[in-house]
């Protein structure tokens, strides 16, 4: 019986590991569709940002109450995972509380800590469900934000419920185990005097005192299996969900933009053409392109100006999309969205991920070289959304994990204007004014200095 459980456990573990590896490869391949971009510079500054923003959750504390609550889930997630190590070893070796005899004095302290965190996680998940469905926090409502309709709302609900169930399984497992230990049943009794009752689960023991020994063992086994299988299933599920941020959030912040928020990225391929047009010497300091050993530039990639689909974006934009938590802080800060325009920076990120997942689907059903005819622009994101952006960077500032939706918007705009000549008519007028009059309005350049004539006039 014991050995049967062990075999089952190892099989479940192996299947999970295999499946997750497959998922990670698929996601990595999708992120690598993006254009190259060097985000490996300034390691010290990046590390500092990651410590503050990812580990320290600095931006989450913009709203201190939510910051603390999210921190409980986050700390609980990281710390309770220490317990998983024992659970996994117990599962493989067929032991029970493997570590207890070796670290007897600290063992109960550790488990007490896990229990407190588990209780905290449980409580916060309940509060978070209430925020969604009772307090109806605006940025989380599908009725106000079309990008949340359907799956995204279910996704959030599933995760919060699953976490509640996992924590209940963990706490009641400890409680039923304590009762078995008290009664001296089988190997459970062997830990009498070594493992005491725990801080929280001791209060759950009365729930189990009416159980027969057999029923109790059955509950103990079931809750143990539910807990660990739940965690394995969760790990797989996460790769399909907005909860991928628990893993990708960290690299995502590490690789985030370090330049001033207002700086738009240069297009070196255009610099060259402009220098030629103006008869200036062509400088070869083109950003991404590295000169080879002979000092020659590699042939310029024949690419598009701007982005039409995900492969025209940079890999970091695509990592951003997989990291997005769909929290909507960006959208809640967006002036266009606040005033009822179609643009929502969260939707930009979700669309980018949806498009990537569509491509992944294509690979899986039609082979790894499959390309469909769709594109991020038009099939997912419309011109109306793109044109509404004021480039105010409020979304960039608001994102707790330093995602930059604006960068995607601007690259798509570049494609529309430079490849498709699809700017709104009044923008085209502005362009031609700049070109002809050196100002965005139709004034004669020779009048540019006329204001100086009034400098001594009375106010």
């Amino acid at each position, binding site marked *: 019986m014991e050995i049967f459980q062990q075999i089952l456990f190892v099989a479940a573990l192996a299947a999970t590991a295999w499946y997750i590896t497959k998922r990670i490869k698929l996601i990595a391949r999708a992120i690598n569709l993006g254009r190259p971009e060097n985000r490996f510079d300034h390691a010290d500054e990046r590390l500092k940002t990651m410590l503050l923003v990812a580990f320290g959750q600095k931006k989450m504390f913009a709203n201190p109450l939510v910051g603390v609550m999210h921190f409980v889930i986050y700390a609980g997630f990281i710390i309770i995972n220490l317990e998983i190590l024992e659970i996994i070893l117990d599962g493989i070796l067929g032991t029970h509380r493997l570590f207890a005899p070796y670290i007897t004095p600290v063992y109960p302290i550790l488990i007490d800590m896990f229990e407190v965190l588990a209780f905290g996680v449980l409580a916060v998940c309940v509060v978070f469900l209430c925020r969604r469905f009772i307090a109806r926090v605006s940025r989380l409502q599908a009725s106000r934000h079309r990008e949340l309709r359907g799956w995204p709302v279910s996704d959030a609900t599933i995760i919060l419920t699953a976490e509640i169930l996992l924590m209940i399984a963990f706490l009641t497992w400890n409680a039923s185990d304590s009762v078995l230990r008290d009664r001296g049943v089988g190997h459970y009794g062997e830990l009498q005097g070594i493992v005491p009752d725990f801080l929280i689960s001791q209060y759950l023991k009365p729930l189990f005192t009416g159980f027969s020994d057999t029923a109790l063992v059955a509950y103990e086994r079931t809750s143990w299996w539910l807990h660990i299988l739940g965690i394995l299933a969760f790990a797989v599920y996460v790769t399909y969900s907005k909860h991928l941020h628990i893993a990708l959030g960290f690299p995502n912040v590490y690789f985030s933009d370090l330049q001033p928020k207002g700086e738009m990225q*240069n297009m070196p391929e255009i610099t060259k053409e402009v220098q030629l047009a103006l008869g200036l010497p062509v400088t070869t300091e083109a950003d991404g392109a590295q000169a080879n050993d002979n000092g020659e530039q590699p042939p310029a990639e024949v690419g598009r100006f701007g982005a039409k689909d995900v492969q025209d974006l940079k890999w970091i934009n695509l990592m951003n999309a997989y990291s997005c938590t769909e929290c909507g802080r960006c959208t809640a800060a967006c002036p266009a969205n606040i005033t009822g325009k179609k643009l929502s920076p969260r939707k930009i990120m979700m669309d980018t991920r949806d498009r990537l997942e569509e491509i992944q689907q294509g690979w899986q059903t039609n082979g790894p070289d499959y390309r469909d005819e769709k594109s991020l622009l038009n099939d997912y994101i419309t011109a109306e959304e793109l044109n509404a952006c004021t480039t105010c960077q409020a979304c960039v500032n608001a994102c707790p994990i330093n995602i930059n939706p604006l960068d995607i918007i601007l690259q798509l705009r570049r494609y529309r204007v430079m490849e498709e000549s699809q700017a709104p008519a009044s923008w085209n007028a502005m362009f031609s004014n700049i070109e002809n009059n050196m100002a965005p309005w139709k004034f004669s350049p020779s009048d540019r200095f006329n204001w100086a004539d009034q400098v001594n006039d009375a106010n």
Partner: protein
Amino acid sequence: MTQEVKTYTVPTMADMAASGEEPEILFWVGCAGSFDDRYKRVTIAFVRILNHVGIKFAVLGPEEGCTGDPARRAGNEFLFQMQAMSNIQVLNGYNVKKIVTACPHCFNTLKNEYPELGGNYDVIHHSQFLQGLINEGRVRVKDGESFKGRRITFHDSCYLGRANKVYEAPRDVLAALDADLVEMKRVRANGLCCGAGGGQYFKEPEAGKKDVNVERVEEALGTGADTIAVACPFCMTMMTDGVKNKNKEDSVRVYDISELIAQGQGL
């Protein structure tokens, strides 16, 4: 003190170069500062302050051209780089080292985006420049209009604030006025855009429930301020239009920070 006759001058780089001189600082006027009737008054106010403190400055005059910011943000990188390269040729030709401008968009572009194209200058916004003058005691708000008891609220420009983290300079400048500074709810890094950036100023807004400037002006009016202070030509227009939209143009005025300083000094 005897009543001095105020004559202000605006030297150009060309004049200076002709007489073999170099200014301490180049005042980049920008398109709005040159052509927009309302913002020309800001340009003039700032030039008067420069004259008053006796700083050796110059402007490019007719040799200045749009930095290319609106074109770049609308997606026209070619046009942006054409503008940038031509401006850099002019600026480098005059060996310009230090630039001050009253436009946050010019400021951001000159400071952050020209270096990669070969234009390296020490660029400051006029709010920082005025803050420096006040700190050094070179500008004292006296002899002019009194601001005592008036309520002023400051609207953060995206390209000054979030883009470049200049939050204190304009507030320090306003603090010199001895008025009551009242803050809106969405300020500094959380400031709400006026709705003009990213090329929006040059087209009609997309369909929605409201215009962004109206949303922002409602917030500004909510502070009970009689003066909305701005530090950007586009914010100036958007806020002024918003105040008109709310029929408050008789009781609430929109001013650039340099105008308020000039008024306080009686310039």
